[in-house]
């Protein structure tokens, strides 16, 4: 039979990549998560996770850290993206570039520099581990928040805002009832790009001398104690949490668009 080239075949490399490096390792993780050291099936790893006050505490700590980081990022990024998107400057893209450029520098380098700057202000970093971690992570993840927000806000139809003004809404009201709901997709993709990595990025914590473990370092500590089973289970639980978030995110996304549309 003659081989016919179709567009579908272009997807083969990616499918291979997906199977080899995403799906296959996932099965390995699942295998380890549900077996014990001698290879027998068990769910004790799962029950351990939810009964051990330390793993739960780590989950909470990571959650709070990630949540704070996300809020800080959002509070900084939204005004920037909004102003940039609405402005008529010609140099707009250059200013945007300035916000993105730090991403091109390796993040360990940036954090090392940040460490010295923070030491100037705080004298001794060890007194403010949580604050430093939030600053470090926000610094690291800010571009990931600005970019999606900027993209959604530039695409926003200007006539919708004009319409709301014509119908008697003040600037605050039109922002809250039109711009904000319509930019929800941007917020959601920004949040998911900041929140989820912030739960596991323990390198920032290590470098800024926060000695409390978060999810990433907890997995690492199990692996260095040759306990692959519990480590895999934590990774799996984290994956489940991510899935739940993504699912709700998508739902809210559709929801808000429906609401935004309905309000018009």
């Amino acid at each position, binding site marked *: 039979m003659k081989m016919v080239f179709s567009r579908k075949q272009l997807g083969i490399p990616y499918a291979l990549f997906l199977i080899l490096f995403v799906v296959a390792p996932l099965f390995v993780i699942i295998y380890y998560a549900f077996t014990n*050291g001698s290879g027998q099936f068990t769910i004790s790893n799962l029950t351990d996770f939810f009964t051990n*006050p*330390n*793993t*739960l*505490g*780590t*989950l*909470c*700590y990571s959650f709070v850290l990630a949540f704070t980081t996300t809020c800080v990022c959002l509070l900084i990024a939204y005004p920037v993206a909004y102003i940039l998107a609405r402005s008529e400057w010609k140099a707009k893209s250059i200013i945007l570039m300035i916000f993105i450029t730090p991403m091109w520098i390796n993040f360990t380098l940036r954090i090392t520099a940040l460490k010295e700057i923070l*030491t100037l202000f705080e004298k*001794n*970093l*060890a*007194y403010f581990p949580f604050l430093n971690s939030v600053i470090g992570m926000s610094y690291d993840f800010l571009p990931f928040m600005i970019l999606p927000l900027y993209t959604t806000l530039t695409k926003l139809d200007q006539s919708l805002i004009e319409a709301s003004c014509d119908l008697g809404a003040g600037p605050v009201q039109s922002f809250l009832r039109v711009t904000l709901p319509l930019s929800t997709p941007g917020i959601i993709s920004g949040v998911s790009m900041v929140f989820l990595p912030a739960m596991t990025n323990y390198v920032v914590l*290590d*470098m800024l*001398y926060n*000695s*409390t*473990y978060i999810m990433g*370092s*907890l997995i690492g*500590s*199990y*692996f*260095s*104690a*040759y*306990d692959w089973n519990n480590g895999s289970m934590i990774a799996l639980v984290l994956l489940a949490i991510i899935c739940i978030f993504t699912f709700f995110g998508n739902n809210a996304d559709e*929801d808000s668009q*429906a*609401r935004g549309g*309905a*309000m018009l």
Partner: protein
Amino acid sequence: MMEFYNAIKKENNLSLRFCDIKNKEKNMSFRFCDIKNKEKNVSFRFCATKNKENKLSYIFNIKNNRKRNMRFRRFAIICMMIVLAGMTTYQTGPECVMAKDDDVVTLRVCNWEEYIDEGGWGEDETISLSEKDIIGENPMYEDFEEWYYDTYHQKVKVEYSCFGTNEELYNMLTLGNEYDIVCPSEYMIMKLMAEDMLVPFSEGFFDETIEENYYIKGVSPFIRNAFETNEINGEPWSKYAAGYMWGITGIIYNPEEVSTEEASTWKIMTNEKFHRRITIKDNVRDAFFGAVGAVKADKLTSDSFINDPDYTKDLAEEMNDLSPETLEMVLAYLQETRDNVYSFETDSGKADMISGKVVAGYQWSGDAVYAMDQAQADDFYLNFAVPKESTNLYFDGWVMLKNGIKDDAKKQHAAEAFINYISMPENVVRNMYYIGYTSVISGGDSDEVFDYLNYCYGVEEEEEDVVEYPLGYFFSGEADDTDYIILTQKEQVDRQLGAQYPSQETMERSAIMRYFDADENVAVNRMWIDVRCYNVKNVPVYVWIIIVISLIVAAVFLIRGKIVAKSMKK
């Protein structure tokens, strides 16, 4: 004869290549030898033949591209001598094997990062000892390939790779990576021994009469004793492991802020005076050792304990105590430590010490030497103290792996020769200079290692504040050996010299830490997680109340929003 030949070869900067060809039909074999001096651009070719009666005959075939002058003639004579020497071993040498071109032994070596001389020294880094000048030009494993061929006429190719932590190495091995010879720390050696993953050394390795056995001839009596008296499953370490570098743990401190007294105890970790100005190692074994020392301080320093005849044995037992009660005390101590220290560090401690961010830190002696050297370059002086309770004596050692060697005698020979080569006093000095750690080799008959110490720390008698620092226990096994006393500046006892070669008195309170078996490992790791994780029970009640209220509010808004949206659609 071989020595003479090697010496001449080195002196005249010659490179040699041997090539063996066998003609089976005529029952004759040929050995070609090309000698080259790169600078002068002259080369010779010689050929030796051997017939069935094993009779040797030589053919000198001189090919050169230079005018013959006096210098050249001298060179030719030297070459002839070398070749005669090299070719004679062809007939008589027991290790003489007919090497074919495709017959190359591959030796897969896995070592810590930056843990062998990788060459490339500048001219000014040459170490001039009384006997010879030492400089590292090429990576040592490449020098080994050349040396091995010159000595045993067998080509060997070293595949050199690195690992970051013992656990990483272990995981690599269990995942099926194959290495022939690796260099883990003592507890990992114990674990590998217990799991029967190692190949014992051959008998020839321990024969002190063989000239090339530099390891067994040169290893320090002190280290040798430790390797012979420590056993796993009834077998001494020395059967499977050859030491490489060793050291102790202690406290590096800034003498302007911390007194020697304060630094000489593990309890400094919870000393409120240095609140958030002290670092601790971020790994469970080191943290555990320091904490045990601190919680048992009273017992360990009591006279009755120290003067007990079984002191050494008791100390090792106390420091390896993994009973639930001890673990509980250690946990409490480490939690207190966590709230007092600047950081748990894996690598940043040295830099923070030098930059003055912290005033003291838990440190390995080798890293402490590095930090003191770096600080000294900025005219900033740091000291090293060994806690009075106990200090952790640790080693890194070479072991051969079963799944790599696979009963291949040639490979094992090459692996053992590798250990011997890096234990050559000259190479020991190269490694020590490059890495900064202390080698287990004291040099045996050769004084090169001791000369190097004198070169680094020795001073003339006339200078002020000079003290005698005896190191007989390490170099000859006799504590009061007058041959091994260094005259050094008084401060050096608390600085680099004291960290690199601790005094005998210090070593008497050293203990080796065992590996943790599977159950102990789980318990210790649980303790460690307890130290490092945020415990959910510590969340204050008002936080829970706030969370519940905000969840209810969010739910109400969500439902209201849905109802509004639905009604609007209608």
